[in-house]
């Protein structure tokens, strides 16, 4: 238990490997002490970096950076938080509002960083995307316990390198990034209003000979439904066969190809609450 707290410093320095990082982020979502410590340590670390230690940025970079933001949509303040940054004046008034745990800054920022690359790859037209980072431990455990849910037909769904723009354009579309246990950075794109979701990865490691990635939807605490499958590789986009709108989580693992399991037979690699 204390071991996980010890990771705060290494986390603040980005010195955890992907598995450690994922573990610590799960912990971080529920540990205000560690969030504080990480924030503090980052302040210290940022003080280590003095401009003197490196060459100055090339002058041309300035124009490039300033040109680079033209037409780039800005994200709204994190969902579920007071819109302080938009609404407040310059006054330095104390703000007492408690911060929801699920919207914790370090996690959220990290999620954003991960999402941003994919969001860019997907489309810059995603105006209303909110990115939410959630603690997933409970989901994973309850998913792993399931064994007797009825199989659901998994009709093949068309694949392509691009997420359907209409999914991204849905007003409630969310990009939910996560890092799989095998280190792959992936996102789930979800619109409940459209009853659609997609699994997206720009670089998904091959699942091993004879295996496929298997997607799952979770309904309530007990119902796990097999959804569809996809191979590994670059620019993977796989629409869920659904239904999605009554699900509260999406998950992925690896299964033998063609096995059509009714419940995961291998550990879940990653999951997001929706």
């Amino acid at each position: 238990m204390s071991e996980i707290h010890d990771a705060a410093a290494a986390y603040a320095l980005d010195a955890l490997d992907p598995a450690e990082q994922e573990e610590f982020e799960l912990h971080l979502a529920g540990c205000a002490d560690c969030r504080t410590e990480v924030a503090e340590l980052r302040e210290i670390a940022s003080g280590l970096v003095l401009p003197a230690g490196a060459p100055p940025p090339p002058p041309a970079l300035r124009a490039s950076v300033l040109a680079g933001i033209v037409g780039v949509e800005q994200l709204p303040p994190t969902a579920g938080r007071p819109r302080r940054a938009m609404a407040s004046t310059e006054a330095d008034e104390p703000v007492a509002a408690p911060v929801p745990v699920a919207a914790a800054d370090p996690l959220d920022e990290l999620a954003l960083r991960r999402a941003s690359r994919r969001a860019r790859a997907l489309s810059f037209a995603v105006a209303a995307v909110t990115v939410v980072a959630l603690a997933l431990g409970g989901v994973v455990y309850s998913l792993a316990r399931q064994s007797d849910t009825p199989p659901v037909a998994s009709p093949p769904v068309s694949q392509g390198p691009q997420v359907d723009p209409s999914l991204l354009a849905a007003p409630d579309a969310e990009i939910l990034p996560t890092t799989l246990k095998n280190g792959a950075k992936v996102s789930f794109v979800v619109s409940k209003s459209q009853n659609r979701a997609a699994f997206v990865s720009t670089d998904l490691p091959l699942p091993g000979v004879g295996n496929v990635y298997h997607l799952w939807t979770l309904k309530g605490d007990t119902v796990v439904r097999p959804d569809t499958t996809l191979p590994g590789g670059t620019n993977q986009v796989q629409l869920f066969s659904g239904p999605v709108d009554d699900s509260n989580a999406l998950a992925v693992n690896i299964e033998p190809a063609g096995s059509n399991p009714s419940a995961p037979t291998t550990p879940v690699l990653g999951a997001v609450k929706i």
Partner: protein
Amino acid sequence: MSALLVEPTTRPLRERSGYGRRVNLHVVADEPEPSGPPEDDAAAAQRTDRAQEAADLAGLLRRVARGDSEAFARLYDATSARTYGVIWRVLRSADHAAEVTQEVYTEVWRQAARFEESKGSATAWITTMAHRRAVDRVRSVTSEVARDEHYARAEPGREVDHVWEGVSSRLDADRVRKGMESLTPIQREALALAYFGGYTQSQVAERLKLPLGTVKTRIRDGLISLRSTLGVES
């Protein structure tokens, strides 16, 4: 002079975070380090300057959040040397550093509304983003072999010295040098390899031939002991 007396503008931010208890218990030295010299007026003035700078940057970010591209340009001017600096330190390549710097500022623009002053300074917010991306890049682009060669040229200690020499090469960096000198060699090396080398703590342990637990502890207590010397306040 008590640290409390010279950081009035930053203290409220800390309290606002709602994390005060933990901070006071574990990280924040409310009083100057017993071993450290008392702050003189110059140091106090420097601290006030930094607090003012932090407030200015936060103000710029709020304007950026409202789509103010002029504020964005000013923010770039005020922070790009540090941002580019940390990225360059990790990547050691002007081309990569420029590319990642551009990515970072695009993210600053996109995410400005999500910056929360109560959670930390604008500098730390941007620097954190920059460092993460640089580390991501160095881990994905540079092959382990190439990077090992790069770092293996010198003994770990010498590489570290080189890093800190660079960091400390200006008068402005006196406090950093002081902080570094107050660290043990292991703390220094572990911090340098992790932060500027982009190594994971396990790789640092391997490189320094130390148990992972020792490296974890050194990284943490090294950072914390730097706190008073650097005068870092959010």
